[in-house]
């Protein structure tokens, strides 16, 4: 359904005022992946990794610098119009709606633009309003909508013309936990009605719960790809030790990275304390050697657990 082959995108930017210098920035560096029919495929990566650029090439908003991409068999460069007819695009955030119009008018407008036939429009708008839980609120102006309601309206707009493929670019960003849970359920429902979905998100639990397969992008390249279980399994088949510390310095963290069997150490700042997340390879118990390296540092809680998708993600994007 979606196929990206060695897709590459370079931006040109300039620096300086008097001596202007042109720079080429490689946002996407030759990525390849494919998404099957009815699959929910996730693109994960830190800010600036190239997720949105990839989506924008696939939905025909940007031309690839090189490489090829096809959606439902149509080339995104040569056959942009055919691609556009068959896809839905939803992004997260407050923008992308006409504030002074009601939700119903917004949907009526986009129904017309996306080719929903006149006699089908009313019925289809009612269907999507029901699906996203906005039935009864559709006559209100969007400017009075909450963030979650806007995002639901975005999804309604994206699927209004019944597209076969839906691109969701961080659809739950900034939505409160309950609203985000409802949105995730809506996304899961899209798969049950036969849609193919490409989702980008920062939230690991979201990707873990929703995605059939995931590609992790870092610095414009795919650094890992597979099912959530496969990615978790790639965390060296080992365990994760979490150590709460107070005032650990960089030198100590470097020493911890040097302990045999340690594959990655990340530091998470938590108010007055830090949480050291240590990923270990193999089955060897490393708590004692780790604590030995922390001699002189105040240590709090120590816990050992199975790796999560977030651990796999961190290991992939921080790997040199």
């Amino acid at each position, binding site marked *: 359904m979606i196929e990206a082959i060695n897709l590459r995108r370079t931006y040109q930017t300039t620096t300086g005022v008097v001596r202007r210098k042109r720079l080429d920035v490689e946002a996407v560096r030759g990525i390849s992946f494919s998404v099957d029919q009815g699959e929910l495929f996730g693109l994960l990566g830190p800010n600036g990794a190239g997720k949105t650029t990839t989506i924008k090439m696939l939905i025909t908003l940007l031309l690839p610098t090189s490489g090829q991409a096809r959606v439902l068999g149509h080339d995104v460069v040569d056959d942009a119009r055919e691609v556009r007819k068959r896809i839905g695009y939803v992004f997260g955030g407050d923008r*992308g709606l006409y504030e002074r119009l009601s939700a119903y008018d917004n949907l009526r407008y986009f129904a*017309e*633009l996306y080719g929903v036939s006149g006699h089908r429009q009313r019925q289809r708008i009612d269907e999507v309003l029901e699906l996203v839980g906005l039935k009864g609120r559709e006559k209100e102006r969007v400017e009075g909508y909450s963030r979650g309601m806007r995002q639901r309206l975005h999804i309604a707009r994206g699927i209004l013309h019944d597209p076969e493929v839906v691109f969701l670019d961080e659809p739950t960003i900034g939505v409160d936990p309950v609203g985000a849970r409802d949105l995730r359920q809506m996304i899961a429902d899209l798969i049950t009605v036969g849609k193919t979905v490409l989702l980008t998100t920062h939230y690991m639990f979201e990707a873990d719960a929703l995605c059939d397969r995931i590609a992790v992008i870092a610095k414009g390249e795919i650094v890992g790809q597979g099912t959530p279980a496969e990615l978790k399994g790639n965390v060296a088949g080992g365990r994760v030790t979490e150590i709460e510390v107070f005032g650990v310095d960089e030198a100590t963290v470097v020493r911890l990275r040097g302990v045999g069997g340690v594959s990655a150490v990340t530091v998470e700042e938590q108010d007055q304390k830090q949480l050291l997340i240590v990923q270990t390879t193999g089955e060897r118990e490393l708590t004692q050697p780790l604590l030995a390296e922390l001699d002189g540092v105040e240590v709090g809680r120590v816990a050992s657990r199975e790796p999560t998708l977030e651990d796999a993600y961190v290991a992939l994007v921080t790997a040199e």
Partner: protein
Amino acid sequence: MRSLRVLGLAWLLHVKMMSRSAFDGAMAVIWPLFYATVAFFMFRTGHGSSSLGPIGLAAAVMGIWTATSVPASSALQRERWSGTLELLVVAPRHLALILLPITLAASTIGLYCVAGTLLWARVLFGIHVTIIHPLFFVLGLVGTVLTIAALGFLMAVSFVGSRRAWAIGAALEYPIWLVCGFLVPVSLLPGWAHPFSWALGPTWGMRAIREAAYGGAPLGSLLLCVGLAGVYLALGVLVLRVVLDSARKRATLSLA
């Protein structure tokens, strides 16, 4: 047929949006009346009351242009700020069909200026505009709205790359009044300015309205007015194609 539906619905919804802003609404009421008042006082002092009728009509058409120039030139910029531009571009419809109703809605809102200004002239200055050819007068107004909307469309797609698109529209407001002969006849302008006047549809729209109101043969002016609207649309579609191709290559579509 489907294209007409898109044009019709988009026009209706944009008129709805534009008429819902209290600030824009207040400005749309005040500014044309202000311009008309200035014009009436100037011409009453200089020419007596005999020329006030044509000036009343001119002030009305100035209002249509004023209502259109800034919203049209910044139309794409506003869509970009509201995050809807990319959604419009990825829609399977031709973007021209989506953008034209925006400028058409702005010039339709400008029609209020005609009614408001003529009423203002009657109540405050006692000016009665007698229309000799009412049908041509209405057609002249419609043609003027169309040509101004089409000119606005050409401006909208031409200025999309500029972060100061609205300022360009504002800067063009007064020159168009002058060059199109709204306030002073085109024949009084220097010779080099005449080709610009003739190439601008509002010049012929204004002439058709005057000829319909005061006697004459407005058909020729009307046809030129509508014909130029067609030229602007065709040019706008070509410019739009270049702009979109460039935006896809240079990734400038979502830049604020």
